[in-house]
């Protein structure tokens, strides 16, 4: 199975995997928070600074032209990756900024009583912007319920009064892959717009905006081998054309007079000011890297790791694993708790063993505290560069945690 993706060769692209933490080799199981960055991406970012460090769309000198070409090419690569058109891909800071942009822009013309629908398994970034705008504009915020790790009764929540539906493609806590295509169909049947939070899906599975028929898709570069500080907003061309800009400033204008301005073409209309040039170019390289592995192969390999992890973790006494049992229905995200031991303590002891996991409410506080009924959870998340050895070490680490706290 490890042959599926030439693991040994790929791991060589991540020199950080050779690093020792507290004298132990790093077992990085926190890719849902941020992925590691491969050498080709780091080299590409350096290439910009070393060879054509210039601003885009402004300078007429050679370096400026090269930087512009590369930045536009990065938009094109990202667009191809999700099967969109180049001008439908807007570079932002991260998925959070993309969602804020949408929340402000799409609620502009909504009236009191109009409904926004999200789910109970949203990351704070796909909950708080809608929640706050709903409060301000007296809109109704409704939730698709979570039952046994899955979204249920979607058609009962979305109604003719629903104007926006915004749902995560993959839960960052439970790993559940949601049927956003079907949710989008229900949204459209009711005349609502469909927003997909792809922060956890675009890095791990094939996401095709035409196939999903979503109106908007957001994701972050740093979770998919790219640099930090670069995110993406995809929107259908006709919708983006109808929307007003979110940030005003340089590069997003066509013509400015003292009393009025005209907006630039897509995507630049939404990219005010000097953007994350090096990061954007780096993301272009990251996408190329992911494509060279193949998203389907990667999914298959991550499923294999997830299945192995679920099986091993469930064998340990006092360990409670959350989410659906079937690895095929989920991504490489496994959240759990050890009875009587706080997630922070678990992750601190694991760190001493060279194992990096996340512990806390995972920026999905309502899901963790109100749906799962936990104060916090421990999350191990996988990417294609992880191995079964990482999971075996995690299991050994958990036994060590129990030794420290329970004395056996």
């Amino acid at each position: 199975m490890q042959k599926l993706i030439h693991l040994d060769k790929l791991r060589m692209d991540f020199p950080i995997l050779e690093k020792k933490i507290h004298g132990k080799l790093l077992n990085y199981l926190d890719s849902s928070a941020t992925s590691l960055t491969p050498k080709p991406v780091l080299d590409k970012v350096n290439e910009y600074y070393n060879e054509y460090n210039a601003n885009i769309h402004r300078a007429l000198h050679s370096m400026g032209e090269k930087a512009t070409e590369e930045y536009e090419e990065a938009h094109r690569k990202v667009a191809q990756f999700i099967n969109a058109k180049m001008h439908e891909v807007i570079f932002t800071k991260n998925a959070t900024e993309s969602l804020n942009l949408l929340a402000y822009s799409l609620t502009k013309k909504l009236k009191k009583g109009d409904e926004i629908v999200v789910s109970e398994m949203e990351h704070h970034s796909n909950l708080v912007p809608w929640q706050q705008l709903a409060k301000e504009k007296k809109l109704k915020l409704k939730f698709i319920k979570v039952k046994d790790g899955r979204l249920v009764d979607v058609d009962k929540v979305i109604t003719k009064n629903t104007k926006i539906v915004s749902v995560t493609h993959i839960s960052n806590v439970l790993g559940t892959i949601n049927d956003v295509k079907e949710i989008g169909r229900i949204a459209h049947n009711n005349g609502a717009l469909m927003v997909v939070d792809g922060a956890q899906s675009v890095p791990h599975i094939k996401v095709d905006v035409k196939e999903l028929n979503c109106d908007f898709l957001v994701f972050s570069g740093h979770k998919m081998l790219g640099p930090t500080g670069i995110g993406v907003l995809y929107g259908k061309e006709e919708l983006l054309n109808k929307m007003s800009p979110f940030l005003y400033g340089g590069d997003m204008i066509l013509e400015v007079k003292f009393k009025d301005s005209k907006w630039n073409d897509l995507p630049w209309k939404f990219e005010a000011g000097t953007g994350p040039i090096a990061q954007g170019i780096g993301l272009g390289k990251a996408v190329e890297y992911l494509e060279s592995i193949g998203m389907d192969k990667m999914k298959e390999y991550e499923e294999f790791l997830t299945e192995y992890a679920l099986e091993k973790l469930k064998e340990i006494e006092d360990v409670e694993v959350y989410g659906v049992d079937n690895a095929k229905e989920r991504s490489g995200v496994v959240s759990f708790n050890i009875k009587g031991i706080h997630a922070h303590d678990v992750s601190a002891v694991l760190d001493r063993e060279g194992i990096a996991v996340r512990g806390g409410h995972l920026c999905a506080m309502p899901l963790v505290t109100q749906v799962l009924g936990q104060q916090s959870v421990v999350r191990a998340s996988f990417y294609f560069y992880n191995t079964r050895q990482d999971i075996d070490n995690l299991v050994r680490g958990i036994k060590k945690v129990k030794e420290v706290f329970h004395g056996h």
Partner: protein
Amino acid sequence: MVTESMDTNYLGDEEIYKENILDHFKNPRNFGEIKICEICHSELNPTCGDMVKIFVKLKNGNIKEAKFKGNGCAISMASASMLTEKIKGRNLKEVKKMSEREIHEMLGIHLGPVRLKCGMLSLKTLLKGIEIMEERK
């Protein structure tokens, strides 16, 4: 190939879960409530949901009794347990001057920026409680 090019000093190789911390976590001192008291305040650590509620009874400007309730990680609970022991009998003015340094000394370990929030939760709760009491006066 990078091996150990970055030294591990910044990681702090000492054990976090020293005997005294585990002892205070497993057998918290002064755990409970004080029914009638001058200071009663709770705070939440937003990164992990840890909660600490501190109760303090005063007499002539000194802390006569201190108790706490709450739930959370070993660091936040041990820190609350130790803090209630440490402040008992001390003058309120002195206690108000307590800072991060004393929490580190009290715990006997160095906490990184993320974990420091857990360690500081009980002192933060106490200081906020004192502030509220003084505003009420």
